[in-house]
C-alpha cells in the first residue's frame, strides 16, 4: 500500500502496512499535530497509556490504604479524590480512547478510505479530552464518577466546578468521536454485507456515541448551573429532582459501558481471522449482535438504580427483561469466536503471538464478567448482594480491564511492528500476559467474593470482619501484580522501539497462515 499525498500537517510518507519506524521518524511537532491517521491513532494510544498509568497509580494508592482496616495513610477526602479521578480517568481517559485509537489505526485500511475522514474533528475530540483530564486533575473532586446529586452539588470546595466542566468536555469529545466514526463508516463504498465487521462495529459505536453523549454533556452542564444557582433541575431542595438526574445520567451511563466494549469486540473480529488464517465463523451473527447491542443499550439503564422504587411496576419489569436480553449479543460474539477458534487448526505462529494470547485471555474475562450480567439483571438478586456492593466493581473490572484493557494491549502489540519497525521482547510480553491473567483473575474473584459478603462500595475504611479483611489484603496484592504487569508492558514498548529485533516484513506470518495482506480488503 502506498501512502496518499499529504493532506495536512506532517502526513508521513512511510507505507502503511509494512513494518516501518513510523514513530522514530516523527518530530515532536509532527507527533502532536500530524493528520496522518496512524500518527493520530498513536497519539491517542500513548496518551491513553499515560492515563492508565495515572489512574492505575491512584488505584495502587488507595489499595494500599484499603489493604487493612483502620485508617493508615489518609482519610475520606483524599480517598474519594483518588477514587473519583481513578474512575473518571479510567473510563473516559483510558479504556474508551485506547480501543477507539486502535480502531482509528485500523479503520482506514479496512474501510478502504486510506485516511481518517474528518480528521479535524478527531483532533478536536482528542484535545478536548486532554483538557477534560487536566480540569479533572486540578479540580480533584470527590463526588465519584457517577456524580450522584444532591451530593455532587454539595461536596465542598471552590474547585468542584472544574469537575462538572470536565464531564461536559468528555461529552463533547465523545460526541465528536461518534461523528468521525459515522462519517468514516459511511465512506464504505461496497455492499453493506461486505463491509468488514470493524465497520459494523464502528457504526454501532457511532450510534451509541451520538445518541448518548449529549445527555452526558447536559448532565455536566446542569450540574454546573444548579451549583451556581442558575437552575434547579437536579436539586430537590429547590424543586428539582434527583430522579431526573438518575434518568439522564444513566441514559448515557449504560451505553457508556459499551463504548469501550464495542471497539474491543471489533479488534477481536479483526485480529482472529488474521492469526487463524480463516474468516470469522459467522459474519451475519456478528452484524446482528452489533446492531442488537446498540439498540438494547438505550433501553436497559434503569438497572443501575433499580432499588429506587418501593414497588416495581411494569416499567421496572420491562427494564429487567431487556437487561436480561442484552446479555445475548455479547454471548453471540463469544459463541462466534469460540466457533472460529475451534473449527480448524490454530497455527503455531498464532499460539506464540502475544496479541493472540491476550485475545484469548480477553475472551476468558468477557465470559467471567459477562455471565454475572445474568445475575445482575434480576431485580430480586440485585436487591440482595449485588447493588452497590463490590460485586459491581468486580463485574466491570472483569469487563473493562479483563476484556477491553487486554484487547487494547492485544491491538497495541499487533500494531507494534508496523509503527516501530521492530518486535517487542517476547519474554517480557509473556511475563506481562501471565501477570495480568493471574492478577486480574485474583482481583475479579476477590471482588466478587467481597460483594457476595456485602462489602460496600466507596468506603475508605471497613469493619474488621473476617470475610472482608483477608480478601482486601489479597486484593491489594493482586492490584500490585497488575501494576507490575503494566510496568513491564511499558518497558517492553519503550525498549523494543529502540533495541528490539527488526520486524520481518510479515511480522505475524500472515502469509504463512493464509492471509496475504496485513489488513486485507476482503470481508472481515
Amino acid at each position, binding site marked *: 500500500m502506498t501512502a496518499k499525498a499529504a493532506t495536512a500537517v506532517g502526513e508521513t510518507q512511510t507505507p502503511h502496512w509494512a513494518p516501518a519506524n513510523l514513530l522514530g521518524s516523527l518530530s515532536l511537532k509532527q507527533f502532536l499535530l500530524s493528520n496522518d491517521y496512524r500518527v493520530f491513532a498513536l497519539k491517542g494510544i500513548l496518551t491513553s497509556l499515560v492515563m492508565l498509568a495515572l489512574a492505575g497509580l491512584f488505584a495502587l494508592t488507595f489499595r494500599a490504604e484499603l489493604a487493612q482496616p483502620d485508617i493508615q495513610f489518609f482519610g475520606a477526602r483524599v480517598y474519594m479524590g483518588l477514587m473519583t479521578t481513578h474512575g473518571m480517568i479510567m473510563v473516559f481517559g483510558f479504556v474508551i480512547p485506547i480501543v477507539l485509537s486502535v480502531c482509528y489505526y485500523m479503520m482506514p485500511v479496512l474501510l478502504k478510505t486510506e485516511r481518517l475522514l474528518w480528521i479535524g474533528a478527531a483532533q478536536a475530540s482528542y484535545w478536548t479530552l486532554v483538557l477534560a483530564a487536566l480540569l479533572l486533575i486540578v479540580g480533584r473532586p470527590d463526588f465519584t464518577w457517577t456524580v450522584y446529586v*444532591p451530593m455532587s452539588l454539595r461536596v465542598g470546595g471552590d474547585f468542584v466546578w472544574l469537575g462538572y466542566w470536565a464531564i461536559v468536555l468528555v461529552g463533547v469529545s465523545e460526541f465528536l468521536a461518534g461523528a468521525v466514526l459515522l462519517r468514516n463508516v459511511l465512506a464504505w463504498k461496497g455492499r453493506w454485507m461486505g463491509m468488514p465487521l470493524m465497520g459494523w462495529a464502528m457504526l454501532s459505536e457511532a450510534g451509541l456515541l451520538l445518541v448518548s453523549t449529549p445527555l452526558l454533556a447536559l448532565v455536566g452542564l446542569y450540574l454546573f448551573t444548579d451549583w451556581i444557582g442558575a437552575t434547579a433541575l437536579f436539586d430537590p431542595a429547590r424543586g428539582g429532582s434527583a430522579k431526573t438526574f438518575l434518568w439522564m445520567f444513566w441514559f448515557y451511563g449504560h451505553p457508556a459501558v459499551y463504548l469501550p466494549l464495542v471497539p474491543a469486540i471489533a479488534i477481536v473480529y479483526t485480529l482472529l481471522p488474521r492469526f487463524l488464517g480463516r474468516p470469522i465463523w459467522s459474519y451475519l451473527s456478528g452484524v446482528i449482535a452489533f446492531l442488537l447491542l446498540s439498540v438494547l443499550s438505550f433501553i436497559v439503564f434503569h438497572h443501575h*438504580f433499580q432499588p429506587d422504587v418501593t414497588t416495581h411496576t411494569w416499567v421496572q419489569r420491562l427494564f429487567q427483561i431487556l437487561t436480561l436480553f442484552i*446479555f445475548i449479543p455479547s454471548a453471540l460474539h463469544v459463541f462466534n469466536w469460540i466457533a472460529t477458534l475451534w473449527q480448524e487448526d490454530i497455527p503455531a505462529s498464532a499460539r506464540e503471538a502475544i496479541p493472540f494470547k491476550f485475545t484469548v485471555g480477553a475472551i476468558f474475562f468477557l*465470559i467471567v464478567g459477562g455471565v454475572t450480567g445474568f445475575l445482575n439483571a434480576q431485580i430480586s438478586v440485585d436487591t440482595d448482594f449485588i447493588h*452497590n456492593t463490590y460485586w459491581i466493581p468486580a463485574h466491570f473490572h472483569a469487563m473493562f480491564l479483563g476484556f477491553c484493557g487486554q484487547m487494547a494491549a492485544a491491538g497495541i502489540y499487533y500494531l507494534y511492528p508496523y509503527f516501530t519497525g521492530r518486535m517487542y521482547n517476547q519474554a517480557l510480553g509473556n511475563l506481562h500476559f501471565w501477570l495480568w491473567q493471574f492478577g486480574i483473575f485474583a482481583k475479579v474473584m476477590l471482588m466478587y467474593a467481597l460483594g457476595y459478603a456485602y462489602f*460496600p462500595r466507596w468506603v475508605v475504611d471497613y469493619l474488621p470482619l473476617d470475610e472482608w479483611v483477608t480478601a482486601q489484603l489479597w486484593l491489594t496484592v493482586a492490584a500490585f501484580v497488575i501494576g507490575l504487569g503494566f510496568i513491564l508492558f511499558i518497558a517492553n514498548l519503550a525498549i523494543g522501539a529502540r533495541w528490539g529485533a527488526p520486524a520481518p516484513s510479515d511480522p505475524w506470518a500472515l502469509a504463512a497462515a493464509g492471509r496475504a495482506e496485513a489488513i486485507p480488503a476482503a470481508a472481515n
Partner: protein
Amino acid sequence: MQHALGLMGNQAIMVGIMLALGIAGIVALFLAVFLPQRWHLVYRMELGFVVLLVALVVYADNDSAGTYRVYEAGLSGEGALSGKVVGDAETDDFDRRITAYAFQWGFVFLDEKGVASRNAVKVAPGEKVLFTLASNDVIHGFNVPAARITTEFEPGEMRRIWIRAPEKPGKYLIQCVNYCGLGHAQMKAWLVVGDAVGEGDGPHV
C-alpha cells in the same frame, strides 16, 4: 435465618446457572484453543444457543418477578408522601414499624410512638419489621446484610422495605451503600435483635 426476599433457594439456583454458563463458556474456550480435535459448528447450533439463552431469560425474569412480587405484596398501601404514616395497622401484619431517617452521616430510628434512637434499632427475633426510609439531605442507601436487602432513596421520598428479623439474638450490621459524602464509610448502624422475653414493647417510662 429468614430472608426478606426469601431468596436463599432461588438465589442459589440463579448463582448455579450463572456458574454453569460461565464454566461451560470457559471450558469451550479452552477446548477450542487446546484440544487437538477440531469441530466445525453448524450454524444451527448458534440458533439453538440463542433459544437456550432466551429460555434462561424467560425463566430468570419470571423467577425474579415472582420473588419480588411476593415480597412487595407484604407492603401495604403506596409509599408516596400521603400525609399518613404508612403501615396501616388494621390491614398489615407487621410486628413493628420503624422509621429510619438517614442523614449525613448516620441514622435515626423512630418507633411508632416517635421515640428515637441513634444508629441502633431494636427488634425481637423473627419479627416482621417495616422500615420506612427517609433521607434528610442526599441519596442514601440502606442495606441489611442479615436480611439480604438493599435499597436507596432520595430526600423527600419515603421508601418502604420490610425484613424478617433474624432468629438469633445479637447485633447485625446496617450500612449505607450509596456514596453520600465524606462520612459515608462511617455511616453504619446496629440492628439489635433482642431476647424475646419482655422486650419489644417500646421504651420504658
